[in-house]
């Protein structure tokens, strides 16, 4: 329960911090950190325009997308405190619930019959497919390391001791951060600020959404950011008491947001046709983590 509330709280300012960082780096004053949420609230009050090509899929998809993110957040633990849902192998459930939301967001893009939205949908499907094994290998390695199979047990019993474990921690943070970028369609996979439909991935999929539905989709992105930020924060919380973990949680969320902002300010998007290979590299890094774990446990013989 505690993680659910904290992630909702973090989601309110997360994208705001990214935008603020980017504006400061580029020498602008920039909007306040609550601006993205204010935009969402404004959208929630608006009416909507629907394409006449669309069907019921287009109506239900944003709600399902939003609900799937909410459900996934319920699985995320907070250090030694369980999420609302916790069972053995819950991270599989986490991934598959998110996949359902993705399924609907893809078919809702196809529902408009637009060539651009189909293109974005195709890219999104491909990239998330390539990102999937990285997450699973990472969690499998943690399961091997800790002997546990649920999010909360894994994070609670994750100890950093030997020098290898620090390297593994760094690599795991890197993989999780990159998966976040892929899942949220941010740099260096996708540029949310691009002005050309041809070069978009996620933005082009939601071209036809408006009003309440668009608000939900945008807020789901904020939630997803905070959710993955929480996963990264969990790597470092261990079994500290609550008065330490809550500041750690917010600290890491803010650091992560600033890092994303800096990354987006100083890198360019990768070439579209090399994105898939790049994402697949994450799986190799995850495999590296796995071999590191094997090394730690002395299973190479």
């Amino acid at each position: 329960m505690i993680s659910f509330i904290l992630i909702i709280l973090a989601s309110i300012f997360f994208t705001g911090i990214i935008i603020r960082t980017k504006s400061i780096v580029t020498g602008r004053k920039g909007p306040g950190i609550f601006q993205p949420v204010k935009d969402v609230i404004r959208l929630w009050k608006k009416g909507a325009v629907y394409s006449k090509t669309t069907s019921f899929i287009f109506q239900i998809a944003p709600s399902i997308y939003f609900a799937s993110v909410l459900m996934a957040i319920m699985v995320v633990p907070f250090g030694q405190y369980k999420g609302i849902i916790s069972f053995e192998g819950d991270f599989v459930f986490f991934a598959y619930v998110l996949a359902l939301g993705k399924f609907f967001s893809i078919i809702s893009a196809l529902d408009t019959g637009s060539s651009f939205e189909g293109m974005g949908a195709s890219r999104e499907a491909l990239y998330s497919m390539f990102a999937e094994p990285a997450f699973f290998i990472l969690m499998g390695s943690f399961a091997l390391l800790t002997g546990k199979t649920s999010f909360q047990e894994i994070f609670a019993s994750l100890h950093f001791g030997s020098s290898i474990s620090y390297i593994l921690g760094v690599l795991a943070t890197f993989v999780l951060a990159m998966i976040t970028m892929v899942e949220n369609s941010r740099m260096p996979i996708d540029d949310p600020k691009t002005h050309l439909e041809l070069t978009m991935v996620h933005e082009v999929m939601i071209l036809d959404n408006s009003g309440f539905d668009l608000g939900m989709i945008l807020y789901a992105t904020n939630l997803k950011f905070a959710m993955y930020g929480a996963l990264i924060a969990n790597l470092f919380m261990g079994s500290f008491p609550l008065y330490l973990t809550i500041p750690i949680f917010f600290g890491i969320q803010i650091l992560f947001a600033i890092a994303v902002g800096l990354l987006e300010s100083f890198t360019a998007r990768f070439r579209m046709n090399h994105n898939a290979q790049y994402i697949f590299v994450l799986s190799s890094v995850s495999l590296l983590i796995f071999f590191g774990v094997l090394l730690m446990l002395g299973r190479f013989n």
Partner: protein
Amino acid sequence: MTDSLLLSLALLLPIAGMISIPLLPHPFRAKANFVFVLLIAAATSIPAVKALTGNAVDIVISKTLVFGNISLHIDSLSSWFILIINLTCINGAFYGIGYMKKYDQQRANLSMHWILFLLFQSSMLWVCIIQNGLFFLIAWEIMSISSLLLVIFEHHRHEILKAGMNYMVQMHIGVAFLSVAFIWVYSSEGSFDFSAIGNFFSHNQNVWLFLLFFAGFGIKAGFIPLHSWLPHAHPAAPSHISGVMSGVIVKMGIYGIIRIALMLKSDLILIGESLLILSILTGIYGILNAAVHRDFKKMLAYCTIENIGIIGAGIGLAIIGMGMNNSFLLVIGLSGALLHTLNHSLFKSLLFFSSGSVYQQTHTRDMEKLGGLVHKMPQTAALFLIGSLAIGGLPPFNGFVSEFILYTGFLHGIKIPMLSGLHSTLMILSFAGLAIIGGLSLLTFTKSFGTIFLGSPRRQLHHNPSEVSLVMRLPQFFIVAVMLSIGIFPQLYFSAVLHLITSVVPSVQLPDVSIFQTTITLMAEIGIYSFMFLCLLILVFLIRNILVRNRTVIINTTWGCGYIAPHSKMQYTGKSFSKTLGKLLGFIVTEKKKYTELKAEEIFPQARKHSTHYTDFFEDNIFNKVINRLIHGMGYFRFIQNGRIQMYVLYGVFFIMLIFLGTLFGFI
């Protein structure tokens, strides 16, 4: 005694059906077929349910002339498959009533079709019941032949006949492997009974005999590289037949493999790991091909191959578990495989039925010619969508349950302390492989659903499609209900499978069943959470509807990025949707293009055609090459078959002389 009565009834009912269906007036034949299917199902399901709850049925017909003792045996493994066959066949027969309406003119052909359907169902049932090798092969052969004849219902079309031939040849290669395997056991043990196989395994090397059986059953099941009949036969068959074939006939191969695997005694780790690797590769290969094909029934056929891979991974896990005396791995692997068998038979027949409805209304299997059907056939679209979600393993449907079990198995496999690094690596790669399969099936089914049902129509169709009849929709709704029940109450099905496994697996390998109580509670939790998820989806949608009910809604055209004359041909096609993937993995899914190059002297080019299609790696690069060489080699002997009757008479005389002289001089 009642069991033998019911079984003889199960033998007599199809015969009665075959005699009575042609005698009935034409409009009643399909319904009569359904009634007979239902009756046969009842006659076989009663002993099956009994066996599943603990009382195995065992009947021996002793001292027959040719076969020796024929033992009929329904244990819980057989009954699991019997129930799946019956469920799928009942749905198929019901759906067929509506689907075959458009062929009403072909009366003789149609009554033959229904007769064969009965034969097909009962031969599959007998395959599960018979435990005598020779007799088993006869039932197996009847099953192959009857399904072949069902596939070539439209036998006047050349390509369908060709697909049928392909199917027939491949099935007989499979039978050849099986015959060799059974004869080998017979020559060593002196019996065709299945129990002899177990004896054979206990004092011989296991790998080779298992390999023979695997080749025989694997052709039916569709493991790579033995899969190449599937993508030809499924599109050729009428949809209710493809549904039943994909739902259950390939599962007969799985049944055979499980049956043999449970008797293995040694070489378990080697067999298990090879099977696991092959299965994961099968899964990835199958879904990758499914992603690029544009014929939606071919896509579904490849997707069957993928699911066979998932089931095979479960079996592989179980064999590894047997080899390491790890009962948890054994039970999880086998229960994942068995549950996925049930699940796949449900959602695959649902998908074949709903795509059959599309075919019936549009007369095309090419998804690039379709689009926007969701407005014309909303219920069919919803059914196809549910099938797609379930086959992708997404909660709250049933596919998630079996895939979750397999994930649990792999996670456990990674952690087993006695395993060396290599085994753990294999486990984690399979774990990731399953995730890739999941991701690819998401891509495949968003593409298929999106291209067939969404957007606007890409071609003007010959007649306006409309929603299909209730007869065709009803079995699909029934399947959805069963699927949801598995998704929300997985513990019921899991404990049934657990009970099944404890009764068929030798008790040495299952020291303590009570440890699985936690797994049952885990299953119950998953069911609750899936249900919670479903409720949350509905809740969010309802809240959204309440909040937006008074807002202004404007209906306008799709945003064309400033372009004011959009055309339906500008939509993204299915082909372009999966193009990037096909290009990235072009070494597996090779694309062949046909076009004529524009020449320099052509100043005013004429209209020309450009066509591309994807080829099957194994079929194109291995089989066709070998076959072409064979045909080339055989060409040298063509002078023998020259069409002159005089020569043929001469051959006969020649061989008679040869035998005569041979016996005369004592050579023979």
